Every structure is written in C-alpha cells, then in structure tokens.
C-alpha cells in the first residue's frame, strides 16, 4: 500500500526536493526515498505468493476437486494439495517471523505494519483525511514516505493480525495430524482450549481466508490506484525499494 509520512522533520535528505516542489519550483529530477529494505521486499513477495497458494489449496481442502478414478494407490491428489498447503503455510510462518525480526533491526518504515499509534491525535486526523480522500472529498492526497495512516491501520488489522490468526489456527489444525506429542500441539494446542471442537477452528480458519481475500482485493486496488492518483510510486517501490515522487 501507499506510504510516506507527513513528518518532514524526521526527513530523509531527498524530502527537501519535495519541499522545493511545494514551493512552486520544479524539482530537477524526481525525488526518491529509500523506503523498503531488501528483507522487507523479499518478505512481501514471498508472503504474497504463499498467501495465494494457501488460499487456492485451502479452498480445495474445504471443497475438494471432483473425484479421481482408478485405484487409490495410483493417485495422491488430496495428499499433494494438503502438502502444498502445509508447505506454503510453514513458509508463510517463517517469513512472517523473519518480518517481525526485521521490524526490530530495520528502518522505521519496517515497523509500521506492526502497530497503530492509537494515542496520537494527529494520526487519527490523518486517517480521517485519508478516508475523505478515498471518499472523493479531498482533491489532493497527502504524500507519505511510508504507509499513510489509513494504510497503516489497514495493514495492521487486515494483514498482521489476520495472518497471525491464520498462522496460529493453521498450526493448531496441523497439530491434529501431527499428534498431541508434537511441538505444534505443545505450542498451539491452546487454541482447542478456546474452541474444544476443532470443527469450529476449521470454520474460523476458513472465514479468516475470506477476510484475507478481502484484504488482498483492497490492498492491490489501493496500491494501483495510489500509484496513479497520488503521484508517487507504489508498486515499483516494492520491487526497487525506492519511492519516487512525481510532480
């Protein structure tokens, strides 16, 4: 999603160029800011791929493909689908953890999706501004180096919280097959203390998938739209790591 920060004070040097822009001067060359460090970008695309694979395979576990003919020993369709789901799930979990780790050692943008500064009045003001911008009530978008406040809120709830929920319930469900002596059950078995019938956990895991479908829809749309409308690079930034501000 879109980024950047109306916090010129903390300012990377290139922001000066934007200021110049605002002052009416045409900047020479387009100002760029390095936002997404390599680990953030790698985690983003690996997680994106894993989530797509998980959605497809997960859906097919709940609603399997039409039956296969022949001897049972000759095919392993469900087996491969489930294997892919579990493998992608573990990849997602590992890269999610890596991403959390990077939040501690990376630049301040890498921390944005892990919290909402609920106590800052200014933050909510800017959330409101973004909502107005999306409701076509503002003519000009504000520029942010990192996520805009609305995007940060969406990333935290729609991505970080939901994916954490999916990883926890996913490992809990996986532990059912691994057995109650497995490390998965030791770590995530508490889920079944909340919902004793794993049928419920299946249902919530399933609903979580649909919640992520909604997140992905909005996420992709907002990224493309901001790329066009707010005159800053969004999509290519997640490839190069650099945010470019156009006039």
């Amino acid at each position: 999603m879109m980024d950047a920060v109306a916090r010129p004070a903390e300012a990377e040097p290139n922001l000066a160029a934007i200021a110049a822009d605002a002052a009416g001067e045409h900047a020479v060359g387009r100002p760029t800011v390095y936002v997404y460090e390599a680990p953030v970008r790698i985690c983003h695309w690996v997680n994106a791929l894993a989530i797509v694979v998980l959605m497809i395979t997960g859906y097919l576990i709940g609603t399997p493909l039409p039956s296969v003919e022949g001897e049972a020993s000759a095919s392993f369709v469900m087996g491969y689908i489930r294997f892919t789901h579990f493998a992608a799930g573990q990849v997602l979990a590992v890269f999610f953890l890596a991403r959390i780790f990077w939040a501690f050692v990376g630049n301040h943008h890498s921390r944005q999706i892990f919290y909402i500064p609920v106590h800052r009045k200014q933050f909510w003001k800017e959330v409101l501004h973004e909502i107005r911008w999306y409701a076509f009530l503002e003519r000009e978008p504000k520029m942010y180096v990192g996520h805009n406040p609305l995007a940060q809120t969406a990333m935290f709830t729609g991505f970080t919280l939901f994916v954490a929920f999916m990883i926890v319930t996913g490992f809990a469900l996986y532990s059912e097959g691994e057995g109650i002596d497995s490390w998965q059950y030791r770590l995530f078995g508490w889920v079944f203390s909340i919902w004793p019938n794993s049928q419920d956990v299946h249902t919530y895991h399933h609903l979580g998938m649909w919640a992520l479908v909604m997140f992905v829809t909005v996420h992709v749309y907002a990224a493309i739209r901001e790329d066009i409308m707010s005159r800053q690079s969004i999509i290519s930034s997640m490839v190069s790591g650099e945010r470019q501000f156009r006039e």
Partner: protein
Amino acid sequence: MGAATETFYSVIRRQGITRRSFHKFCSLTATSLGLGPLAASRIANALETKPRTPVIWMHGLECTCCSESFIRSAHPLVKDAVLSMISLDYDDTIMAAAGHQAEEILEETRAKYKGQYILAVEGNPPLNEGGMFCIDGGKPFVEKLKLMAEDAMAIIAWGACASWGCVQAAKPNPTQATPIDKVITNKPIIKVPGCPPIAEVMTGVVTFITTFGKLPELDRQGRPKMFYSQRIHDKCYRRPHFDAGQFVEEWDDEAARKGHCLYKMGCKGPTTYNACSTVRWNGGVSFPIQSGHGCIGCSEDGFWDKGSFYDRLTTIKQFGIERNADEVGMVAAGTVGAAVAAHAAVTAVKRLAGKRDDTKQDH
C-alpha cells in the same frame, strides 16, 4: 449390588479358586516380579484386605445409551467389570434396590468410603429453575450430584451429555443443561465422550482406574489419551481414498459402493477424537464409516449445533440465515470486490472530469 466391603480375595474365592491356588498365584507373581521373600504374603494380604473400588453410577438428563453401551462390553465382559473388578454399589437403572433402600446406599458409601469411591455420572444436571427439570429421589439432580461429588475420589463423566452437554444442551438449551465439569470444579474429572461412548472404552477406563488406583493420563480436554488422542480420520481405513482424492459424491453412487472417502458427504472424522476407527463397535464388528455413513462427530463439543451431519462446511448461524464459511466469505468478498470496482469507476470518471477542467483552465 454386592456387599460394599467385598475384597478381590472374596471375589476370587467366589469364582471357585481355592485358597491354595490363590497363594500359589501370589508366590508366583512375587517371584516373577523379582520381589523379596516377604512379597508373596504382602500381595496376598493386599488382595485379601484391599476393598474393590466402590462405584456410584448416577443418571442425570440422559437417554441411558451410555449404560446400554456399557453392558455390551466384550473386552472385558461387562460381568467381569461389574462383578469382579469394581463394586458397583449404586446404579439406579439396573440395581435391584429401589426407593429409600437405594438412597441409603448413597449415604452409606459416602460415609464409609469418604474420598475413595468413584462417581460415574451419566447425563448432566439442568440448572435452570433451580434444577427442577431433573428430579431424582425427590430432589433436583444437581443437588444429589454435588453431594456425592464432595466425597468422591474422582468423577467419570460418561458420554457427550456429561462431558459436553449433548442434545439437551443444544441451542437454545431451555433447561440450561450443563456438563459436569462446569458444575463440579474441585474434583478430578475424566471425560469419556461419545453418544454413547464405545463399550470397551468405558470398561477400559474403569479397568485402568481400579487396577492402578489412579486416573489415566488425560488430554487438554480431560479425555483419556489412550482412547481420545487421535481423530477418527487419522486411523480411518478409508483414509487412502481421502489422500488419493476419491470421494463419495452422492449417496448410492459408484464411489459409495466401492467404499471411498465420505468427506464430501459431511463425515466429521477429521474433527472427531474417538477410538471408533480402531476399537470399533459391537465387539469390533464395524463402525459408522465402515457401514457406509459418515461420522457425525458425536464425541465432540456441541455436535448438534454445527449444522447438518451431511455438510462438509459448518453452518454459521450468526449470520441470520444458515450459511457456511464459503457462502459468507464469497458474499463478503464479492461485496468488497464490487465496492472496489465502483470506487475505481468513480475515480476514473473524476479523473477524466478533472482533466477536462484542467484543460479548460489552461486555455
């Protein structure tokens, strides 16, 4: 049902074993266990004096299917369990005594075996209206349950009723039927869920407790690990068809005749912890899946309230109309998709309009 003071020795004698054979058995046991010279007489002494564990079997709101299952146990035979291993001192459904005579036994056991008897509860107490929906011996069952639980060593919660609530606790649960562990919180409770539980699982649990004098190892939900640590799915003989992707698509189709996986027919094997696929029923003859019907998950919490037994995805009632996760999700995701599309359209229109304005201003 047998004198409460009966020991293992008296049972052994009653079954026609001589005192001489009994002592031979004790010596042999001591020798084979590699124990010292005094062990034989200690074993004999223990068997002669240690009373069989008294069991009080009470019935709350239930259908007696647990008892029906229990009396069909094949290994061990229920006669051995009831007549030799335990001292079933009270079970109002099958005991000869009735009325005050029966109530006296409860008092007697409570006084005589304080902290030593097992309280087996079939069914659960309804708590609404002060427990008036289940009257036992002129009093609400919940009072009787609490009274007997006070001095019990441990409590066995027989069946889905006592463990989870079962059908009488299904929504909207007018009598407020409540599982045992929500009413008695200060005693070890072992849950043996199922509607009913498998006979051999029931006698197996009883045998374990009387043999070792302690409860078997329990899982997170309070169920004995030895019978409830795996799902039906994990040991299902149709599992290869699941992994291959071979499903019964409709009742009576070719796949049903061939015995393929019942997953699409709503089998709850993947979410049900029980021993059906290994121990099976009626002395190991069959179990639901083997008979061509999916598991209905009868040993799971709230299995009556999870929608149809024949749907794979659980019905979600919170959304007013009965929907499953996919239907709810698709509607929600569809709405978001439509909203995004509409937003994009408005954006495009605005942008075009804006450009035209800009162009006009430029001229």
